[in-house]
Structure formats: structure tokens, C-alpha cells
């Protein structure tokens, strides 16, 4: 045989006992189930009681009591139905009846049974990752009777009390996964244990968890602020006749000044030189009037950009400080591990 075939055979051999544990093997119980399916309640009661006197697995025993509970409710014997369902709850505290496939009478009897036994059900621990000291692990469970409930975490040499309260119904807790000294709980496998007690009755359930340590993500430095962009620090002013006008004014002032300041004794003043240079100035002014003006500094935009740069620098300084702090922190990942067999009456 090939290796893959061996693998399949091995897996099948390992799974077989588990599958058989979740199926009804006992022939008496099978007959009881068959009688119930045929609405032969008396036969179902007889065979069910007989099956309970035989050697049954835990699963079969729970099914036998459940069958009795359904049968009694079908026969309107509610008290006996409740008693049978109480045994089901004690054997399988997490057992839930499907309301779409169960008669209302059986459902109400099951609910009454739940209130008459002390169990802690539906202990759920959500997977969560948080920075040590800044987050918490959500825990929730349901207590069927008012009871003193103590929640603990156990792992290796660690045994810490998480919570102690008198509760009934659903309880929600937030656990910071810290030691009494405030440090994050070391990485490893732990078990959350919930003990409920009232009078002589007590119940305990547990959920294994795994705590892993990791580095805290650091924040990237900013190069811009979302929604804010740098503005151009120069802007092109609109075209203007000012260059031409000023060229004319300057040239006119020079020529008029020459004419006005020349000595009357020397005859007619020569404006040739001034006119040549002045013509150059006027031509330059005319060209500049037609040309696109040079970009001018936009003071408002410069101040805005400066403010933006300062904001980004300030934020980056804060980010650097935050990253320094984060590098000293630890990211805790808490995840539920595979649950072992459910708890039971002590």
C-alpha cells in the first residue's frame, strides 16, 4: 500500500471510536428511539427505562434521558419530563434544543429543568489581540441559578482570580490578562476555570486558552496630512499694463528732466542719447506687458505650507514618541484552544 493509503487507514482507525461514541450503539435504546419515532410512548418509556439500567456511554445515557424527557412531555407528564431533562443538563450542560424541531411543551420543560440545576454553560472566550495593559479579553458564560461564581485562570504555577461575583444568567467579563504586578501574563497555555456554587451544589467548567506574545506595530511617519495638500508658494499675477506704463514714466522723466535741467546758454538740448536708451526701455516695457508675468511669492500659501510642515513635524514627533513607547510594549494574542470534555457536577 502506498503511504497515502496508510494515512487514510490510520485516520479512519483513530476517528472510528470518536464516531461510535457519538452514535447510539445500545440496542435497547435504539428500540426506545424507534418506539418514540412511531409515537408509541409507552413502549418508548419501557425501553428507555430499561436502557438506563444497562451499561451506556455518556452520550447514550444523555440521549436516553432526553428521550424520556420528550416522551413524558408528549404524555403531558411535565414534572417527570423536567426531571429527565435535568439529568440531560447535568450530563451535557451545553445541550441546546432546536426550537424549530422541538415541541413547545418539551422546550418549556427543558427551560424549567435548566433553572433547577446549577450549571455554567456557554463559556465563550473570544480571540483577541491587544497591547498589554491597554485592552482586555472578553469572557462570557451563563449561570442557570443564582450562585457565587469565581472565575480563575490557571496555567503552570499561575493561578489568578479573574472575578468573583454572585450572578444569574449571562455574565460578561473583561479580563486584562495581567499579573497582580501589572505585567502581561507570560506566553503559554492556560485554562479559564469558572466555578459556581450555591449551598451544597457546585459546578465547574473550563476553557483552555493560549496566550502568545508579539511585537506591537509601530506607526509610520507622516509625509502629509490627510485632506491637506501643500499649496504653490508662488502665483502668477494677471497681465498688467504696469510695465509699459512705468517704462514710459521712467523714460519720460529722464527726457523731461534732461530738457528741464539743460542750460539755456547752450542752445537746444540733445535728446538723441536719452531717446535711444528710452526707446529700449519702452520696448522692454511693452514686451513685459505682453509677456506672462513672473511668479510672485504667495505669502498666504507660504504661511499655510509652513503651518502644515510644522503640524506634520509635530505629529511625527508624537509618532516617534509613540513608537518608542510601543517598542517597549508587548502585543498579547489570546485565543481559545480546543476544549476538552465538558465540566460536570462535583
Amino acid at each position: 500500500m502506498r503511504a497515502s493509503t496508510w494515512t487514510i487507514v490510520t485516520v479512519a482507525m483513530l476517528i472510528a471510536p470518536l464516531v461510535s461514541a457519538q452514535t447510539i450503539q445500545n440496542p435497547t435504546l435504539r428500540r426506545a428511539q424507534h418506539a418514540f419515532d412511531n409515537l408509541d410512548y409507552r413502549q418508548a418509556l419501557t425501553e428507555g427505562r430499561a436502557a438506563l439500567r444497562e451499561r451506556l456511554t455518556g452520550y447514550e445515557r444523555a440521549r436516553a434521558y432526553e428521550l424520556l424527557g420528550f416522551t413524558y412531555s408528549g404524555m403531558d407528564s411535565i414534572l417527570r419530563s423536567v426531571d429527565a431533562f435535568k439529568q440531560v443538563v447535568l450530563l451535557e450542560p451545553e445541550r441546546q434544543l432546536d426550537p424549530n424541531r422541538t415541541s413547545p411543551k418539551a422546550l418549556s420543560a427543558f427551560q424549567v429543568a435548566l433553572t433547577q440545576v446549577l450549571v455554567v454553560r456557554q463559556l465563550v472566550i473570544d480571540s483577541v489581540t491587544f497591547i498589554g495593559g491597554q485592552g482586555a479579553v472578553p469572557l462570557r458564560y451563563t449561570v442557570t441559578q443564582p450562585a457565587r461564581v469565581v472565575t480563575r485562570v490557571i496555567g503552570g504555577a499561575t493561578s489568578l482570580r479573574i472575578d468573583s461575583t454572585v450572578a444569574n444568567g449571562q455574565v460578561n467579563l473583561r479580563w486584562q490578562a495581567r499579573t497582580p504586578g501589572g505585567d502581561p501574563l507570560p506566553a503559554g497555555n492556560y485554562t479559564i476555570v469558572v466555578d459556581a456554587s450555591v449551598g451544597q451544589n457546585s459546578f465547574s467548567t473550563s476553557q483552555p486558552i493560549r496566550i502568545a506574545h508579539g511585537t506591537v506595530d509601530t506607526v509610520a511617519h507622516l509625509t502629509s496630512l490627510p485632506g491637506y495638500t501643500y499649496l504653490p508658494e508662488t502665483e502668477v499675477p494677471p497681465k498688467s499694463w504696469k510695465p509699459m506704463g512705468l517704462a514710459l514714466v521712467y523714460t519720460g522723466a529722464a527726457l523731461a528732466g534732461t530738457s528741464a535741467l539743460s542750460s539755456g546758454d547752450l542752445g537746444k538740448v540733445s535728446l538723441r542719447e536719452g531717446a535711444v536708451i528710452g526707446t529700449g526701455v519702452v520696448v522692454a516695457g511693452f514686451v513685459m506687458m505682453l509677456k506672462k508675468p513672473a511668479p510672485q511669492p504667495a505669502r498666504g500659501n507660504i504661511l499655510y505650507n509652513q503651518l502644515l510642515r510644522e503640524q506634520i513635524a509635530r505629529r511625527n514627533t508624537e509618532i516617534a514618541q509613540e513608537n518608542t513607547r510601543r517598542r517597549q510594549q508587548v502585543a498579547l494574542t489570546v485565543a481559545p484552544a480546543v476544549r476538552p470534555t465538558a465540566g460536570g457536577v462535583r
Partner: protein
Amino acid sequence: MSRRFGGLAVSALGVLLTAQPLNRLTAQHFSIGPQIAFGDYKEVSADLHYRGGGIAAKASMSWKRFSADVVLSKLNYTPEGGTATADFEASEVDVRVRYYIAGPVSGELGFINRNTDPEFEAQSVGAAVIGARINYLLGPGVRVALNGGLLAGSKFSGGGSVSPLGAIQLGLGLTVDALRGRLQVTGDYGFQRLSRETDDGSGPASAPIQQSVGRMGLAIAF
């Protein structure tokens, strides 16, 4: 002749003073280049009228709030009608140092020194310049300037004097940057009028001097 050498020495000194710190003053702007010059000169009366042309060199620099121009020019003047018969050569040094005051206005100090050859064909002149200059940027790389002031303490080779407000100068300048500012096209106009008076013992006599010079050229900017 010795006076002409004196003028050239002053000119050379002016150019050196302007150019020497170039390698250290990186923030400064410096330009230097040749120009062609043409002018009109009158002295004493309308009969002594000359016109001519020549060459010039202009160096400019600016550093922080200071700026300076040094212009060396040599024009050959030829009689333009009238009674004048001989040509003469006018060599002029014009040094101006300016300090930026506010807005477009700068204060200006400097001196001019014009020597003539032959020496007595026209008056050699030396004077300090006190004035102001207005600059305006017409557009990218195009600057125009208007300046004016007094020619204080004027001295003449033929003697004579000028009243405090009798010697004035006026100028118009244009600079156009080309080749990304590496080359400049320059144009300058300068007008001087000196209301000179002489007295040979028969009483004061008016002997005014008036010159208009235009210059156009190129300059390399550093």
C-alpha cells in the same frame, strides 16, 4: 598726461575693488561687460558743440543692501558745427555705490572724473556724486532704473566754480537678462549739467558744461 594716468589708476582700482571679493561673496551678484558709447558735449555756448562715440566698460555688483557700478568710458568728440575746430578725447571714470533704503529707492554716493585730451580743448572735470536711484523690475530679468543727484565739489582743469545746486546729473538705465541670467543686455543714459562760472578778474562769467552720453552693451553675470 599724468592726469590721464591718474584717471586710469582710479578706474583700475574701482574695477579691482568691485571684482576682488567675488570668490568669497557668494551671495553677491556681479556682472561686467563692454559697451559702445555715443555722446553729445557742449561747453560755454552753443558754438562749442561736439558729438562722438567710443567704448566703455561697466562692472556692477550687489551684496546684501549694497550695490555698486563702475563705468569706464572713452569717447572721441568731434566738433558739430559752431566754432570748434579740433577733436578731443574724453576719458571718464564713474563710480557709484548705493545703499538700499526702502521700496524701490536707494541712496547713491560716488564720484566722476573726466579727463580730456588735448588737455585744454575741453574741461577736465572731477566731482562727487550724491543722489538717489529708483529701481523697478519690469518683468522677469528686466530692470529699469532712474537716478539723479548733485555733482558736489566740482573741480575743473580750467578753473571756475559751481554753485551747490548748479551741478546736476540724471540717468536712465536698463538691464535685460538673457541666457538664464548669465548674459545681460545693458543700456544706460547719463546727463550732466555743470553751471560753471569763471572769473578772470572782469567779473563772473558763465561757462556751463553739458554732456549727454548713451551706452549700450553686453555683460557677463556671475
